[in-house]
């Protein structure tokens, strides 16, 4: 799983400092805020988890970093630059359910899509791209499935294909939306190995994660989210019982009540 060339990071890629800086970010769907005033920095080389209850805005945070959603206010910087300047350094693994797996493409076709970002308009993938895709498929142990139609895959295999597509991007920052969701134990371990290999090569991984039991053993950095940022930092300090309680509820704070009011909608004060 670690046969990717660890020297493949380009010399201009930063190896220290901040990978992603989210500054006072507020995102709204139909004027209803789904993330407000989120202020968080992910250090370069971290293997970071974003945790929080359902509807806390975890996926929204990832998509905002990727520029997929309109930002109401605030800004996002990747390696100290705006996303459009460093887009080739960023890879994304969306949620498995976000696509139609009946789409008429093969496993290899999907992995090859990881190369489309650097291809540009009208250009077709070249041999180098095919080789990179084949290597990525190999590193997630899915080479035997290369010509399968994607609907014939199990959930865990689908997740590996998505991971391979991101690996084919050969990026420096990996943003993953629930890479462990709905996979079997063996796949979970092999995905974890891939993530750790990425980290050892100096790459940064930020993953939305839903299993609180494994946060501590899988990750070294955590951002805890519930519409607003509850805490962020190294696992040892940030992933505390107190912060968990504040993220997932329990005692109702005034902030939680506001959160609830926003969720229900309609009760927001209207401007005259």
């Amino acid at each position, binding site marked *: 799983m670690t046969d990717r060339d660890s020297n493949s990071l380009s010399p201009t890629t930063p190896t220290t400092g901040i990978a992603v800086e989210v500054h006072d970010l507020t995102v709204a769907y139909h004027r209803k805020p789904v993330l407000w005033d989120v202020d968080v920095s992910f250090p370069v080389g971290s293997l970071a988890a974003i945790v929080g209850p359902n509807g806390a805005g975890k996926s929204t945070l990832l*998509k905002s970093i*990727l*520029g*997929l959603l309109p930002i109401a206010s605030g800004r996002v910087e990747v390696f100290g630059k705006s996303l*459009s300047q460093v*887009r080739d350094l*960023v*890879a*994304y693994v*969306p949620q498995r359910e*976000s*696509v*139609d797996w009946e*789409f*008429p*493409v*093969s496993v290899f*076709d*999907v992995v090859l*899509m990881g190369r*489309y*970002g650097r*291809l540009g*308009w*009208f*250009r*077709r*993938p070249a041999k180098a791209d095919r080789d990179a895709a084949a290597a990525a498929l190999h590193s997630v142990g899915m080479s035997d499935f290369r010509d399968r*139609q994607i*609907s014939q895959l199990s959930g865990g295999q689908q997740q590996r294909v998505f991971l391979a*597509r991101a690996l084919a991007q050969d990026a420096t920052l990996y*943003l993953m939306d629930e890479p462990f969701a709905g996979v079997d134990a063996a796949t979970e371990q092999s995905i974890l190995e891939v993530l750790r290999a990425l980290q050892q090569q100096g790459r940064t991984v930020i993953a939305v994660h839903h299993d609180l039991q494994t946060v501590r053993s899988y990750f070294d950095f955590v951002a805890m989210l519930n519409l607003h940022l509850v805490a962020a930092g190294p696992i040892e300090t940030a992933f505390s019982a107190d912060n968990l309680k504040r993220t997932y509820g329990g005692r109702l704070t005034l902030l939680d009540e506001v959160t609830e009011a926003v969720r229900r909608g309609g009760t927001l004060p209207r401007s005259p």
Partner: protein
Amino acid sequence: MNDFLRLITLQDANTRTVLLGTGSLGLAAGVIGALAVLRRRALVGDALAHAALPGVCVAFLVFRERSLPLFLLGALVFGVLGVLTMNAIRRFTRIKEDAAIAIVLGSFFGLGIMLSGMIQRLPSGNRAGLDSFLFGKAAGMVHADLLISAAACILALLGVAALYKELKLVGFDREFAGSLGWPVGFLDLTLMALLAIVTVVGLPAVGVVLMAALLIIPGVTAKFWTDRLAPHLALAGLFGMLSGLLGSALSAVLPSPNSSMSRGFPTGPLIVLVAGTLFVGSLLFAPRRGLVARWRTARLLQQHIDDEHLLRDLYELQEAGTPASLSTLAERRTWRTGSLHAALRRALTNADVTDRNAVITLTASGLTRAVRVIRSHRLWELYLHEHAGVAPDHVDRDADLIEHFITPNLLAKFEAQLALGDADPLRTGAALGVPLSLHPPGENAR
């Protein structure tokens, strides 16, 4: 018959024009429609086509002449207006897409029917030829119309060829495409524009009512034949082209349904009927994905399972020293009606069993096969029990479902994993080298 001969030998210049027009239209509609179906935008074509009708009427009312370019322009303007309305409804209300499509499609179409009724009453109204926009009349195509239609179709196909990679990416995974920096909205809009162009030029030949069917059916039909995008699009184009050609050919030879309509049967229904026939044919007879092929596969599998059950039952009866007859076999498990008889017949034909005085006995070859079946069954049981943590009393039922799928290759792997050596308890002590079951003989009977 004479008409038909003239038609297929393409003697008539007008026939050539019509066939070229409907053929190229079908090709483009098949390809673009297939992409729209994959992008889940198929019904946008339906809304667009229906919404285009008032545009044709307004074009006639404004310019007071029958001119295809002007009609198509009107159709395009109103079609796009309809789609924009639909998007606005979806965006600013909680109304879902299907309802939004129905609202727009119905209202615009109703307006179009009302306007065309008004035009028919005008002194110049008959010359408008609006009736052909309802159900299509390819026979009305003249050479200039053909040029417009063919040019639009070639443009649309070139668009798809140039943007193949991009459309594939956005079609499969919109968010990922966005994360790579591709302008997803623009690409979607491009596909919709191509869809709008093909839809609008298809209206004179196919009509507003059925245009969506020509867009949707070929793409869905292609799905029965392939699971790769490029052949999928090529086949959709082929099916669309065949529909266009055969449908318009049929309309030329069929008599007109009523005398008030000008010469020829409306083309739209015939084109769509051809497309529908190709769909039904594929649904039934396509290799592997067609219903017949799938039914055959399921039947063969069921027969295979019945055959193995029979062999196993015969062996176990023999093991217990009970003579096997039809009635003892029938008691051992629930056979579907006639399936025991059929399995016995196959076994007799195969010379796996003999039937002497209603006593059924395994032959030498039957015994070899039975041993293999039983070995699969018992190894799988053992594997489930030892490695998959299935409780012994659950083992037999699970083994029964899976064992028929165990290939010799898998069997070898089981043996390796279960580390069966010479001191193998499953091998030693068993009659004829057949492994012992986890269960005493006869317990498998249900």
